[in-house]
């Protein structure tokens, strides 16, 4: 029954074709075809996930002699279910949201085609099928983002996406070429088998194939998942319809994490590449979060939030927690999709009520409420630092007693601790009638999130990488020597704690500004508000390229 995987993209393709052919006949009612196709695809994907959970073996279904195959395996069917579900939600949302727009049936046809391309991408069983779907996703996204054919700006920003995606396609083509030359097959299962038999093969200039391929695949993933320096397209593609933004942020942008997972057997032998992946992810997570905080446009802020989350997802791959990255991309996809689809309502509500908290003096005199009470900072600091560590350790030790033998797990726990502490730290600034109740609620929420996250991510690990030896090899490949690891953790802890002290000090001395420091912060803010001048740099660069092309044509008399 697992050959039903071939029907996953086929349903969306048929739906796209029928939507186009019957658009004139059925009018706006034609979208029922698209929605029905979406329901069928979700049902089929859920059935295939069920089969996989019941222990059905992985299998490659080939349509051609050397390429054109789709894989039935845990990663492909799980991702297919995620994509089909998000795509269905987006289609249902679009039925009313896009009703007043021109090109209504074209929009649904493009959505169907995009779903088909994504489903082929996640189930591709060979490099050529993967390249084709990888490329087509970029092209289809370009036309979806530019759905409003009158809008030059939508196409301008859509072009940024297209060209970044094309840049990211090239390393993947190179990686495919190298793998084919070295191991003589396009088929992914065959390639992975041959890599495990001969992981030390070398290519041109005696470069190790697995390392070069790992780096090239990572580059392709970086472009698709908006990693730093390849991120500018993501926050600027808000000119497209909201459902497209939701699909993009909830599904398409996660392709980087999927791709690294698909090539997991390569990364076991890829040397330092995972360390570089970690660094790129870390830088992206930090810069994405900083830029998110400085935005005053809700959709652009969500765009940078996605960038930060993608950084975190790539970072998880960098520490060897491949299955966690998949869980992260699914969780992120669901909550970011929800945020985008509800962004319009939030903007509508903001027009009625600005949501700005009332002044303390106003609430005391006019509303006759007693002033809020804050706990002594020392108690709060103790809770802030100890509670997250306690919760994280207990929950993780319950599922993985060998926790401290995996550096990746320690790094993730460390980030969990920082995030949890930051969450509790922020409660110190909150005004509440009953602060202990507030702290209690936050701690309970934190426990639920951490325990849920731990259990689910452990289940994902069991499902996606059931061979414990393989999972250990991934963690081992991501490891560094113990001394460097301890030094790095100490330095990071020092930086973060210094930051907290600095924030506390600033809060305690509001109004007492040191002018020289203020100027530094002002300059830093200017740098952030210009988004580190990266967009300006790219714009200038592309103008110069076009001008050079024009000058060359004049020089050669257009011949």
């Amino acid at each position, binding site marked *: 029954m697992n050959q039903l995987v071939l029907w996953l993209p086929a349903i969306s393709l048929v739906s796209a074709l029928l939507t186009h052919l019957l658009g004139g006949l059925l009018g706006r009612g034609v979208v029922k075809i698209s929605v029905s196709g979406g329901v069928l695809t979700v049902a089929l994907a859920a059935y295939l996930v069920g089969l996989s959970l019941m222990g059905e073996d992985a299998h490659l279904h080939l349509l051609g002699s050397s390429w054109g195959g789709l894989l039935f395996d845990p990663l492909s069917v799980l991702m297919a279910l995620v994509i089909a579900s998000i795509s269905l939600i987006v289609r249902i949302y679009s039925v009313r949201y896009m009703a007043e727009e021109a090109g209504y049936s074209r929009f649904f046809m493009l959505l169907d085609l995009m779903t088909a391309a994504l489903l082929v991408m996640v189930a591709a069983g060979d490099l050529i099928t993967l390249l084709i779907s990888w*490329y087509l996703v970029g092209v289809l996204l370009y036309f979806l983002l530019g759905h409003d054919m009158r809008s030059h700006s939508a196409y301008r920003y859509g*072009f940024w996406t297209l060209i970044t995606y*094309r840049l990211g396609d090239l390393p993947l083509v190179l990686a495919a070429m190298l793998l084919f030359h070295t191991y003589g097959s396009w088929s992914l299962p065959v390639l992975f088998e041959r890599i495990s038999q001969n992981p030390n093969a070398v290519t041109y200039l005696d470069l190790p194939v697995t390392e070069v391929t790992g780096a090239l695949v990572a580059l392709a993933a970086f472009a698709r998942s908006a990693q730093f320096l390849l991120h500018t397209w993501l926050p600027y593609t808000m000119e497209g319809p909201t459902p497209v933004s939701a699909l993009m942020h909830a599904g398409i942008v996660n392709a980087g994490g999927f791709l690294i997972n698909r090539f997991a057997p390569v990364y076991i032998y890829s040397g330092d590449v995972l360390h570089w992946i970690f660094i790129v992810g870390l830088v992206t997570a930090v810069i994405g979060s900083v830029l998110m905080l400085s935005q005053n446009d809700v959709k652009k802020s969500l765009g940078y939030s996605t960038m930060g989350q993608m950084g975190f997802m790539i970072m998880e791959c960098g520490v060897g927690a491949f299955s966690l990255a998949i869980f992260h991309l699914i969780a992120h996809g669901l909550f970011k999709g929800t945020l985008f689809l509800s962004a319009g309502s939030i903007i509508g509500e903001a027009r009625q009520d600005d949501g700005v908290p009332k002044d303390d003096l106003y609430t005391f005199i006019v509303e006759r409420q007693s002033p809020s009470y804050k706990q002594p900072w020392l108690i709060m600091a103790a809770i802030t630092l100890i509670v997250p560590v306690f919760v994280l350790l207990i929950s993780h030790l319950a599922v993985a007693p060998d926790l401290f033998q995996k550096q990746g797990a320690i790094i993730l726990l460390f980030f969990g601790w920082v995030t949890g502490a930051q969450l509790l730290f922020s409660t110190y600034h909150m005004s509440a009638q009953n602060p202990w109740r507030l702290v209690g609620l936050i701690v309970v929420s934190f426990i639920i999130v951490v325990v849920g996250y731990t259990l689910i991510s452990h289940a994902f690990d069991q499902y996606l990488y059931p061979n414990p030896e393989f999972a250990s090899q991934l963690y081992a490949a991501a490891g560094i020597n113990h001394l460097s690891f301890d030094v790095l953790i100490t330095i990071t802890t020092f930086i973060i704690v210094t930051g907290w002290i600095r924030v506390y000090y600033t809060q305690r001395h509001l109004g007492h500004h040191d002018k020289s420091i203020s100027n530094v912060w002002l300059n830093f803010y200017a740098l952030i508000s210009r988004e580190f001048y990266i967009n300006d740099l790219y714009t200038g660069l592309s103008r110069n*390229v076009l001008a050079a092309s024009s000058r060359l044509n004049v020089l050669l008399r257009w011949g």
Partner: protein
Amino acid sequence: MMEAVKLIIIGIFLPLFPLSIIFNVVFERLPYPALRGVVLLAWPLVGIYILHGVEEPLPDWVIIWAVSTAILYAFRLLAVRQMGLWIGFLATSAWSLLWIALNGGVSNDFPYLLALGFSIPLALLALLDRHIELRFGAAYTDLYGGLALTTPRLAGVLVFAVLAATATPVFPAFFLLLATIVNASPGVVVCLLLTWLLWAWASARLLQGLVVGPIVGEKIQDIGAGLSWLYAGMFLLLVVAGIYLTGGLL
């Protein structure tokens, strides 16, 4: 000596800069769209025919020359706004890659199909160029735009033709380019990928300059439904041919 003369003649038909100027000048001066289409189909076939008569293996410098021509014309394509010229430049860039494909042993059984994989979408573009000129006076980007709303069928066909001509999957040019990449040396592969990237950039500029924008003022007649179905049939044929061709290519 004879071989050198042959190579120069081939360099005109499988264009190598500056011999490529001859094709572009000829193509630019052809008055009839059908004739342009025929030239686009036949020109590289002549080059391949003569190339088959060359008995000695191609020297390495010819491959470097060919890939340089491909990248040069792809780069120049970025600034071209006139559609006729755009087709000529893209044809020059694409055909020069045939040197690499044929030298690398890509599909020695069907060498002419290689050229047609690139040429048929270009010939279709040449016909569309005429349709646009008849309706708008000139096929020029960023001059009027708005084809998608003014003449949606023409715009749709144009989009598919441009995608097919710039080696988008699953059109034949994509598989031809992929096969060429697989059979080339790493340095050449990087240049091929850069050429491909520049084609994508140029195609987006062409489409944005023609297709996007508000409706053009006066009522302009779109192409007929029958003609658009004919074009659709051709694209379908191209896709099927592309996928079929790969059996022998990869």
